[in-house]
């Protein structure tokens, strides 16, 4: 989802660093201190001044450069990476070519959602924020949108505010989506601090799984979470920070989708967006699969009613991670292709489907369990009789 971690063979005494990839070996020397040169093969130019030199092809035993394994060959100019030469740990923090840059800021969390795709770890990972603070000034200013994800970003407290300031100062034209459970935003002062940053394009994306406190608390496995999250949403409205509500649909949430939609329309009519999302077969979902899985065709009526309630209330509403063949046609207008470019796949049942270009397909993790109702749209009208 976020930090692609790989362990390289290379080791040295050099300190861990964050650098931007350059593919220009002739880059003027004064510009090299923030850059890591990426070459296909070992060259013999003057590479002094670069933070590091990465090569796609070479023998680590003989070359002074850092050799990248094939699964990192996609890296290109203006990507931003972190490398720890002591451990060989390499991470791509930002990819210039991806429209979905989502930066993991911490793995710590104060909830433990049944279907978490990024299971939390209680570790000191504050070095990640250090790296991001270095990375943000290196990220292309032309990036249209970017996200922070976790873990729970608000656990960083003032360091989250620092990240917001950095993105505002270095990436003022970039929309920033921040995933948070909103629980700590029940402290109005903290919500106010976020507002005070004055980020021009900030939206906080907050999951809400039920209109009923106990049912939401169960899904996120935290007593009092509903209370805190709903207060957090109200506080954000109070201080003028835009919010999106995210609902993951599964066996424990689908039955009250219409009531949840009404609850949102009544209590949070100010939210900028409501996203109704399908289950991703990863993280804790795998462990709790039998308690979570429901075939999307079995909640078509609840989903339809929820979308109708939200859209009639004038709320911008999207359906994520749902294949078109599982949705009634009048919901297609709400379905978005939301799965990251490098994550989506199609099933054998999709072969020959005429709607593949409009359909978001599946997460790469989906083969574990997916609907038995997937079927290709065969568009007879567009078949050419070439034979």
């Amino acid at each position, binding site marked *: 989802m976020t930090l692609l971690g790989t362990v390289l063979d290379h080791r040295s005494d050099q300190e861990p660093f964050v650098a931007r990839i350059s593919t220009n070996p002739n880059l003027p020397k004064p510009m090299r201190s923030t850059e890591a040169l990426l070459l296909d093969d070992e060259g013999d130019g003057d590479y002094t001044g670069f933070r590091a030199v990465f090569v796609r092809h070479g023998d680590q035993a003989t070359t002074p450069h850092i050799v990248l394994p094939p699964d990192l060959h996609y890296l290109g100019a203006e990507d931003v990476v972190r490398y720890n030469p002591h451990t060989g740990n390499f991470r791509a923090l930002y990819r210039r070519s991806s429209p979905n840059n989502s930066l993991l800021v911490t793995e710590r969390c104060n909830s433990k959602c049944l279907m978490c795709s990024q299971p939390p770890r209680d570790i000191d990972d504050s070095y990640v924020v250090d790296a991001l603070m270095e990375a943000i000034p290196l990220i292309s200013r032309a990036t249209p949108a970017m996200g922070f994800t976790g873990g729970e970003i608000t656990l960083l407290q003032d360091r989250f505010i620092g990240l917001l300031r950095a993105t505002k100062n270095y990436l003022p034209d970039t929309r920033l989506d921040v995933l948070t459970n909103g629980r700590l935003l029940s402290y109005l002062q903290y919500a106010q601090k976020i507002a005070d940053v004055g980020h021009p394009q900030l939206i906080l994306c907050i999951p809400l799984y039920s209109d009923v*406190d106990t049912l939401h608390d169960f899904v996120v496995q935290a007593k009092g979470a509903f209370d805190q999250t709903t207060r957090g949403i109200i506080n954000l409205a109070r201080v003028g920070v835009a919010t999106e509500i995210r609902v993951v649909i599964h066996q424990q949430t689908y039955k009250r989708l219409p009531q949840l939609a009404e609850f949102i329309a*009544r209590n949070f009519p100010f939210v900028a967006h409501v996203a109704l999302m399908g289950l991703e077969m990863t993280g804790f979902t795998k462990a709790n699969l039998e*308690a979570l899985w429901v075939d999307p065709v079995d909640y078509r009526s609840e989903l339809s009613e929820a979308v109708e309630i939200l859209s009639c209330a004038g709320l911008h509403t999207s359906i994520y991670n749902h294949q078109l063949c599982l949705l009634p046609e009048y919901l297609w207008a709400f379905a978005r292709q939301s799965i990251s470019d490098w994550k989506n796949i199609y099933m054998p049942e999709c072969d020959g489907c005429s709607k593949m270009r409009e359909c978001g397909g599946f997460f790469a993790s989906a083969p574990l369990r997916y609907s038995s109702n997937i079927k290709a749209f065969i568009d007879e009208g567009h078949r050419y009789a070439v034979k």
Partner: protein
Amino acid sequence: MIELPLAKAFSHPDAYASGATYKLLPFRFLRYDEARYLITNLVGEYKLLGTDEFRAFVGHNLATASTLFYDLKGKHFLYDDVSDASLELLATKYRTKQSLLSNFTALHMFVTSLRCDHSCPYCQVSRVSEDRSAFDMTEETASRAIDLMFKSPSPVLKVEFQGGESLLNFGLVKYIVTEVKQRNDGRHLEFVIATNLSPLTDEILEFCREHSILISTSLDGPEELHNTNRPRPGRDSHQRATNGIQRVRDYLGRDRVSALMTTTAKSLTMPREIIDEYLRMGFRSVFLRPISPYGFALKSAAKIGYQTEAFLEFYRTGLDYILELNRQGIPMREEYAAIVLRKMLTPYPTGYVDLQSPSGIGITCISYNYDGDIYASDESRMLAENGDHTFRLGNVHRDTYEDIMASSQLLPMIYDTMAEGTPGCTDCAFQPWCGTDPVFHHATQGDYVGHRPTSEYCAKNMGVFRTLIDLMEGDPHAKTIMRRWAQ
């Protein structure tokens, strides 16, 4: 105990469940029919409960893991120790619902002339007279009224020209628009001319285009009905109105003209024909409005009046037809239903003066009569034309803004008639959707508060609320259509 196939590290629903007890949040109820109770919370969210369900709810005997318990919790009828954020959410919704109050008076009506070329029996005030000096507002009067209007703290000022026939004094309309724009201190301005369209000229249209002025006119239905309701020399009111509507659209744009209808006894049998006429004229909404019991309408009551039940039957037939049109894919909306549905289905307030509590008189709208007298609403100056000056708040030439708003009888009238406290309303389940109308009750029952069991205001609104609930509860498709209207 609910056992789910969860991994070991996870807790089961019981670990997060409510205890056996719960607390009630403020709500009102009424016996809806033989088998059901209607309950509404502080902000107008509602639910119909079976008698046994209702008894269990109020008796604190609901099972706290039941669907009904969840429904009532989600709609803020009850809460328990798990979370009290509902109190904050309710408070936020209540403030939202009353948010227009803090803006104060937004709608300012200027009666530019009482003269009119029509002699409609339901009209309260118009005079067929050539005497300009007696019934036209002067620039001096208008100028003072504009001064007073800008004393209102409202960020939006809506200037509506009323009559008589407002355009018979078009010179003054021009003067007021120009002056208001010149004196504007940063408010958002809107201008509306209420007119029967018969004096419409290209000059007027050009002026409306230049200043983005909206037109509001009267269309009572098909030609014969309209001309009977709205007599004028030549019996050509309908033709003038429909031609005028077309000209306004051609000149200013499709949505720059709206129309209102008044239901007379003759209209009662013709709901479909009236709606068809609105369709024929390209309107996408119609406001099925009962006759107002003011002014000349009171005197003509025997001829053109009717009982509330007859109006409700007309209303229901019309509404059914409009829903049927929607089912065919023809978008059409009934405006009164839309106002009420907004109160039922959204957290937002409406600016509709006659359905507010506290009453909107003076504090939502105010009327400057041609002679400089100031009235608390359009209806109250109509009463005045029949000699009842109860709602006259002062005169633009003699009184200050502070006198008019704070020292007149206005504030007591508003306090005393708040539905939250008046007999019959205070505990009525319909109250969050309803309002209070001191002018109506003064006119029909002789006191501001009125007597609910015999109030036609009460009977009409209760009838409309029940009609809308019946439709939404009985027909999911109707509910979809009505959800759209509410927005």
